[in-house]
């Protein structure tokens, strides 16, 4: 009888004990915050000699500028820094950085080795958790300090957002100069922040629609060398230009496949444009579309299984998707207006395009099944979107209206985030159009 009572009491007690423990932690669901950029402190990298200190300051400036232009980071004005005696061998005084609300702190040093190479060390600190997030060391030639700055910015970007960065990349574009009636168009290449612009061709021939190979240092583009507009391949390192197939007709709108081994392009034969894919190794080409309409501007999906292209077979320019072997061609754009220049994002989740409606041009994105269309920009003339290699930023060119007296009509490169934020002008030496973004430089 006694043990029975004890058992009863124990049973009830355990129920209450368990129940009260289950209710101990208050559950708080947080579903609104803000999209504010992460405040980051990037003090100049430390250097022993004045030359090293100068490079250290330049590297910090490039890192700050890259992070700020991405729109996701907000570098803090160096004049606000409290701690000024950072030492790579010591832990920073986090309280000094919390006071200015720096959420991330970059610190580093630059040193010259005996063999003349530059050694750059950097650490990324999480100020509020007081933990080191990244610690890396790089060796390079002194002239190459800009690439190190971009690589460090990419590391910071990737650690704090989870996405691959896009700062260590280049952009190839058409540099335009001269009066509107006699435009000189030259192929040019520059770093994605506008530094180091270089001309690749001399402007004697018309050059259009350059595109970067995703895996090699090659560019494909359209040139009318010899009077016939055809597709060429240009190797940046060797400077060699090579004709891509001798077709009986005009070839244009070339684009590399994701593995860099094939090029998809339009071939115009007797007034009818169709899409072909050419294997670069065997130089054999395969015809993918066979309609009497104009089919052009092909772009591969990153898994190489699908191709999106532009066709006017329905009566107006619209976007289509088909399998990489040409089967299952179906239309995906059904909104008002015309759709052109579809480009598949390297992330695979979106296709960017140019839209023309009511006399205005728009750059937009939509999902590969045609849903979720969003317009990111609007102007008199916005065209030719190209994706950064992480699929988050789009660059395009924008032309102003030409006035009656011939002035105006400036054409410039602009970039915008895929969420529609952060529209920015890309600095170029003069007018520029037709940008194409390179992959991350190996």
């Amino acid at each position, binding site marked *: 009888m006694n043990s029975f009572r004890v058992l009863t009491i124990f049973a009830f007690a355990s129920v209450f004990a*368990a129940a009260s423990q289950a209710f101990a932690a208050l559950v708080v*669901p947080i*579903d*609104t*915050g*803000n999209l504010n950029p992460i405040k980051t402190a990037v003090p100049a990298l430390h250097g022993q000699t004045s030359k090293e200190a100068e490079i250290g300051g330049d590297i910090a400036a490039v890192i700050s500028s890259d992070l700020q232009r991405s729109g996701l980071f907000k570098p803090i004005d160096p004049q606000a820094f409290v701690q000024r005696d950072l030492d790579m061998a010591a832990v920073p005084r986090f309280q000094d950085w919390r006071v200015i609300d720096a959420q991330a702190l970059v610190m580093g040093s630059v040193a010259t080795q005996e063999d003349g190479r530059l050694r750059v060390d950097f650490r990324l600190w999480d100020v*509020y958790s007081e933990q080191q*997030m990244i610690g890396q060391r790089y060796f390079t030639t002194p002239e190459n300090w800009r690439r190190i700055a971009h690589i460090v910015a990419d590391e910071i970007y990737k650690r704090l*957002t*989870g996405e691959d960065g896009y700062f260590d990349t280049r952009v190839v574009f058409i540099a335009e100069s001269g009066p509107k009636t006699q435009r000189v168009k030259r192929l040019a290449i520059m770093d994605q922040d506008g530094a180091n612009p270089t001309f690749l061709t001399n402007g004697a021939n018309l050059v259009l629609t350059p595109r970067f190979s995703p895996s090699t240092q090659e560019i494909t583009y359209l040139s009318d060398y010899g009077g016939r507009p055809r597709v060429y391949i240009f190797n940046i390192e060797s400077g060699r230009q090579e004709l891509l197939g001798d077709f009986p007709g005009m070839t244009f709108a070339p684009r590399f496949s994701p593995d860099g081994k094939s090029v998809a392009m339009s071939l115009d034969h007797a007034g009818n444009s169709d899409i072909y894919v050419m294997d670069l190794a065997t130089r054999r080409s395969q015809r993918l579309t066979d309609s009497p309409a104009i089919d052009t501007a092909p772009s591969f999906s990153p898994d190489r299984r699908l191709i999106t292209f532009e066709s006017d077979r329905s009566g107006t320019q619209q976007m289509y998707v088909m399998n990489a072997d040409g089967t299952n061609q179906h239309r995906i754009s059904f909104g008002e207006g015309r759709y052109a220049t579809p480009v598949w994002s390297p992330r695979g989740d979106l296709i960017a395009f140019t839209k023309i409606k009511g006399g205005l041009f728009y750059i937009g994105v939509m999902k590969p099944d045609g849903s979720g269309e969003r317009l990111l920009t609007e102007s008199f003339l916005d065209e030719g979107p190209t994706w950064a290699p992480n699929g988050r930023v789009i660059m395009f060119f924008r032309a102003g209206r030409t006035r009656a007296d011939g002035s105006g009509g400036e054409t410039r490169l602009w970039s915008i985030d895929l969420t529609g934020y952060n529209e920015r002008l890309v600095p170029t030496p003069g007018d520029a159009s037709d940008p194409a973004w390179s992959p991350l430089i190996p």
Partner: protein
Amino acid sequence: MRLGLLFAIVMHAAVILLAAFYIVRVTPMPVPANDIPVDVVDVAPETNIKAAAPKDEKPAEKPAPEAAPPVPPESAPPEPPANQAILAPEEKPAPKKPEPPKPQEKPKPPAEDKPKDEHFDPNAVQVLIDKAKKQQKKDQKTADAPAPGADDKPREKAGAGTANTVDVTDLLINAMKRQVGACWSFPAGAVQPEDLVVWIDIQLRPDGNLVGAPQVEEQGRMNEPYFRAAAEAAVRAINRCQPYDLPAEHYDVWKEMRLSFDPRHMVGQ
């Protein structure tokens, strides 16, 4: 007879335990805020308004609800869209969280506000006003009622509780949401935000400061770059905004918390 009684007690205990744990897991599911149909637009100004509004809207909105309590929204069609949005919440006087019948009334008034001028979105404004009104009502109710004992009252959160107890929990939840949300910065444009819900356990001292570091629950996912970035952003938010301003008399309720950071409504892709 003894065996039968023992068996009955054990089974009762089992049922009570089951009910206790199961109900605990069910109630903290995502806030009813999700039930309100809101058009999340990607353009910058509108997103920023959502984040800032809960603090600013509260004092401004106080006069408006007092002015028009008895008017039901269906009988007020000729009024301009702004007033219709303000009057709509009058249908639901009680706090949203515990009573099951009440949330069903909510979808009706927002649905009426649909065909509107595209630049002014009354649904978005209504969400903010709902929040402000709930906060105001809770402040009034807890000021009137005596502070309930924290040890046995929270158990009644399971659905049969008094209005006072439930208000305390709601008050604390809203206070934490507001304070942590102000510090939580999430990178725009992240891929698959439904995968990036982060659960974090924290303990607080009576002065509102943290005891130790916030603990991310799903440690196994910390080697995924997107999840780690989201988890670190959440931890950073918690660290940034301490000490937390919470009523000291309910310390036993809020000394341990599980926070979930759900970016789905913010990222809006």
